[in-house]
Each structure stands twice: as C-alpha cells, then as structure tokens.
C-alpha cells in the first residue's frame, strides 16, 4: 500500500509539473518548455500505469471498480490518448488542455483513494470491470474529440475573422485538429459502444433486464445517438470541419451530463456507493 501511495503521489506531482510547464510555455512562448512538459506528462503517464497495475494486483478485482479508481483511470486514458496523437501529429498545444484536465481528475481521485471502498457484491465478476474499462476509455477519447473540436472552432473563428488573436499562433492547423477529432471520435465511439453493451449484459444478469429507462441510461443513450449521427455524417455524408466539431462538442456535453449531472438531479439505479 505504501508503494502505491508513493506511485500515486509521484504521478500526481508529475501531472502538476507538466500542467505548469504547458502553461508557462504558452506565456513565455518557448517550444522547448512545452517539449519538456510533454516528456514530464509521459513520465506521469508511465508512473500512473505502474500505479494502476499495482493496485489491480493488490485488490484482485479489476482496476476500475470504485468511483475514485474510475476517475484516475479516466485521467490515465486521456493522457495516453493525447500522447499517441502527439507522436502522430505535432499538436503540442493540446497538451495545455489535457495536462490540467488529468491533473484535476487526479486531485479528485486523491480525495477518496485512501479510504477503503467496500465493493458491493453485485459489482463482482468480469462484466463490471469490462464495462467501466471500455466506457471510460471511450469517454477519454471523446474528451479528446471535444477538445480538438473546441480548438478547431477557435482556429476557424480566427481565420474567418481574418485577424489572428494572441494565441492563434499556437493552435495546430485545421487539418490536424480535424484528424484528431475524427480519429478519437471513431475509436472513442467503438470503445464506448462496447462498454455500454457490457453494462447491459451485466444489468441483464443482476437486475434481470438490460434496460429499464433509468435517467442515467436515457441520457447516455441520447449522447450515444448523437455520436451515431456524427459518425454517420462523417463517414457516409463526408462531414468535415466546423459542423463535425460543433456536434462533437454538443454530444460530449450530453455525455458529461449523463456522467456527472444525472446524479444531482435524478435518482438512478447506477448509484452503487
């Protein structure tokens, strides 16, 4: 347990350093600082991976059951997704969004990590970790799609207004942003869908029916339908750029509500802790 705590703290610290580095690089306008920040983020990701593996082996029940584990996993997946894109396209500025995002998630994780979470019996088995793993990975990629879409709209706006604003020089090109949006949408959608199916299978097993018009399920379905439309428009109709970026942001807003907002406004069967 001690070892893990250290790993967690080290990862948290590395995320913080990376976040600070990215922000400083924007202020002082030095690419070298951002480059170092990327390496620090990579280190954070590596340490974080060790932490997740360690915890998995210790608990012996899958790495992503409790709420806090899920938050930590989401941070891990978002960082990993970004690092993959960073090696594929030179879009370092995205890191200035991703690093703080992961850091905040890790901060939230740290609130509950030390307390022992008792896992209810109905969450045992393989379907639950599979459900959480796939939905969170999918959601992490959809976060990236949303971020890339936001940056796309900013860059598009700057280009249409014909005058560059202060930070537009750091924004990647429209083509790169659209590619990130496109790829993370496709992969995110696949993972997300598999995750939902796994959840439904599990629900069918423990509750007797896979679908029960629960508010959480309804909003998730709504977000999923929006993503279906978006994937269809992109692949079949050939949507590119602004419209696709806008819809990916809208769909993510609905998804975010189903993830976090639903619990505040409705009672849902998806509350386990």
């Amino acid at each position, binding site marked *: 347990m001690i070892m893990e705590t250290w790993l967690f703290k080290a990862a948290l610290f590395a995320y913080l350093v990376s976040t600070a580095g990215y922000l400083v690089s924007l202020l002082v306008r030095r690419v070298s600082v951002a480059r170092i920040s990327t390496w620090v983020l990579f280190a954070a990701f590596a340490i974080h991976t060790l932490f997740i593996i360690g915890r998995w082996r210790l608990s012996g029940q899958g790495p992503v059951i409790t709420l806090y584990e899920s938050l930590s996993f989401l941070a891990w997946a978002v960082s990993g997704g970004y690092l993959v894109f960073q090696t594929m396209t030179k879009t370092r500025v995205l890191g200035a969004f991703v690093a703080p995002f992961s850091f905040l998630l890790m901060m939230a994780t740290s609130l509950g990590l030390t307390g022992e979470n008792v896992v209810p019996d109905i969450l045992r088995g393989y379907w639950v970790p599979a459900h959480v793993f796939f939905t969170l990975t999918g959601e992490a990629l959809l976060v990236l799609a949303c971020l890339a879409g936001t940056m796309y709209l900013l860059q598009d706006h700057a*280009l249409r207004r*014909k*005058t560059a604003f202060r930070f*537009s020089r750091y924004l990647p*090109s*429209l*083509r*790169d942003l659209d590619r990130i949006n496109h790829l993370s949408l496709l992969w995110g959608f696949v993972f997300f869908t598999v995750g939902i199916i796994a959840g439904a299978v599990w629900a069918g097993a423990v509750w007797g029916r896979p679908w029960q018009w629960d508010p959480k399920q309804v909003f998730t379905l709504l977000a999923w339908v929006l993503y279906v439309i978006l994937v269809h428009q992109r692949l079949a109709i050939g949507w*590119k750029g602004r419209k696709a970026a806008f819809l990916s942001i809208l769909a993510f807003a609905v998804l975010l509500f189903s993830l976090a907002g639903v619990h505040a406004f409705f009672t849902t069967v998806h509350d386990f802790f």
Partner: protein
Amino acid sequence: MNHKTAPVEIRERLALSCDDPSRAITTLRSLPHLREVLYLSTCNRVEVLADLQDETRGIDRIKAFIFSHGNLPGEELESCLYVYRGDTATRHLFRVASSLDSMVMGEPQILGQVKEAYRMSVENGTSGLMINKLLHHAFRVAKRVRTETAIAFNAVSVSYAAVALAKKIFGGLGGKTVLLIGAGEMSELAARHLLKNGAGRIIVANRTFENAVRLAEEFQGVATGFDALEEHLKEADIVISSTGSAGFVVTADMARNALRRRKNRLLFLIDIAVPRDIDPAAGEIDNVYLYNIDHLQEIVDENLKNRLEESEKAERIVEEEVIRFAEWRNTLEVVPTIRSLKDRADAIIHGEMEKSFSWIRELREEDRERVEILVHGVVNKILHGPVTSLKEASQNDGTPVYVAAVRDLFHLDGPGSESGRQDGGKTETEEKETSS
C-alpha cells in the same frame, strides 16, 4: 555601408567588384595597422570589421581599400560610409547578425552570411582573439534574439502571409495543389512561395491559353483555359486569383459545387484582384476560407506592428550582450598586467631556488617537492589579493589606477622585467567600418 546609407547604384557597383571575398580579404590582410580583420559583403551591405593598431591611420587605409575596390571617387563614397568604434561597433555587429539591421528585419539569411564571412577570415588567418570572441558572441546574440523574440515569426509580405495562412489551414503544404487563375506579379510570387514551401502541383488557368502554357512551363505545372475552371476547382486546395475580369471568375455556387465534389476537403481561396475575382459569399461556406488583398494586407500591417514590438525586445537583448562583451574586453586590459605579475613571481621563485640550490640538493626527493609546494603556495596566496583587485577594478573604471599601482609596487616595468608595457593594454582600438 548598408542599404540605409548608400543608394542602390553604389551598392551594386561595390557588390559587383567585391563579389570575390577571398581577394578582398587577401588585400585587407596586407594592409598595415590592422591586427585582425573580417570582411562581410552581401547585396545590401559591405562591412569591414577590424582590430586596429593605429586607429586613424587604420581607418584611412580601410577607406582607401573600399574606394579603390569600388572604383569610386572618395567624396562620393565618403558620405555613404559609417565608422563605429568600441561598444558602438560591438552593438552594430550584434544587430547585423541578429538581422535587426536588415532591410527585411528578421530575415534569416544574414546570420549565414556573417558566419561565412567569419569562416573566410579564419581560413585566411586574419582572425585572432578579438574577432573570434566577438563573432562567437554575435552568433550567441543572434540565437538569443531568434529564440526569445518572435521577430522572425511573422509574415511581412503578402505572399508570406498567404503561405502562413495556408499552413494554419493545412498544416504542411506537402502534396497540396495550387490553382493559379490569371497572371500578375503578386500572384506569381505567392505561387512561387507556396511551391517553395512544399506545395506539390500547380495548375495555371488563363483566358488566353498561350499565356497559361507559358506560365505553366515556368512552374512546371499544367495549363488550362477558363472553361475547365470548375473541373480544376475540385482538385485544387489553394486557389490564387488575379485576373483583370470585371465580374466574378469564381462564384459562390462554383465553390459550393467544388466542395461537394471534393468531399468537403478544405479549400483556401486567395483573391488578389481588384475588382475582386471571387464572390465574397464563397467565404461564408463551411470549409472554405476566402482572403482578399485587403485581408492579406491587414495581416501584413499587423505583423509589421508586432515586429516592431519584438524588435524593441531584441534591442534590449543586444544592449545586454554589448555590456557583457565590454566586460570581457575590460578584463582583457588587465590580463597583460596579471600575466607579467605572475611571470615576475615565477622569476623570483626561480632565482631564489637557484641561490639555495646547494642545500636543496641535499634534501630527499620528497622533501624537495614539499619545499617547492610551500614556496609556490605562499607566493600564490600573496598574489591572490592584487589579482582579484585588478579583475574587479576592470569592471568599475578603476583599471588605469590599479594597473599603474600594481606595476609600480611590484616593479613590473623596471629593468629585468621581460614583459613590458608594449604588448599590454590598448586593445580597445578595435574598429569597425562599414560600407556597402
């Protein structure tokens, strides 16, 4: 001289006769009164950087060299020349190397030219301590300016602005197709810049097919008439239009159709013509980005303004570095004194050891070593104070007083001191003369 002081007629005459820098540097090397020399000649400047023994006579010699080289009468050229000494010369060199003194501020070529000039000077054996140190410092300054300011980032001409925008849209320009509609100096320049930055293919469309063929040959592209314009809009990623047409050559409908047929791939339209060639409504379409000549000019103006701000930052860096270099040069003045002080001490040790040779000889090997170490230790401790004071004084104008005191106190200039004053001091006669 440079582009600010000399009209182009004089610059070109001098550049013409100066285009063989190795001959120039050989001539310069043979001039008297010059210790070290560097010769820089570009299309916009001709400069001679020299460390002089005799200031006035050295400058006259360099001027004479320039006059004879340019085959110009002295009076006519005199007014185009500038002469800088000391810190002013350092500052000028730093500004030149950082491209602050260039016609297009921030252009990157000048640093390469300065490096080339330095290489020439090293190869011809005309560089010494002063020029080596100064030039390496100048390269460092140029690097600082480049990395710490955005002076080289902004596009300050219409065609550069077009390239910068294209990069913002497409990332790299590799494999992109350019469609050039009509002809004109500015549009051809923009096309050339796009090709130089990696654009893959060019299609030239002109109302008169012959003109299109002529231009296409020049760019190694494809020629076409106006009737096939819609077809080519489908393929092109970047369209530059500058025809004399009174109406729109590219309508919004044409752009919309093209976009549908190219599956919404991004399209960048540049309208350089007045009256305009491309319907402004085309710019409202998703995934189409339309810039006309005014938009591009606005960007250029904005960038020029930014460049001015950045250049102020750069000037501050140069100023800092000039001071640093001056500090180094100041220590140079006390270096000969420090050296003769140490030589003197060594001579004394040597002499005294000689005197005591008879009994030192009797000692065991290791004791002999101990005695030597002890003697040297004592002497070094004693000298440490004066040497430190000299170095400190060199940074606060105290040099002459301290140098005189140390020389007097330790009898450095008396009979028997081998390093006299003649090779000391006066390195500040470093001179820079620029002429183009």
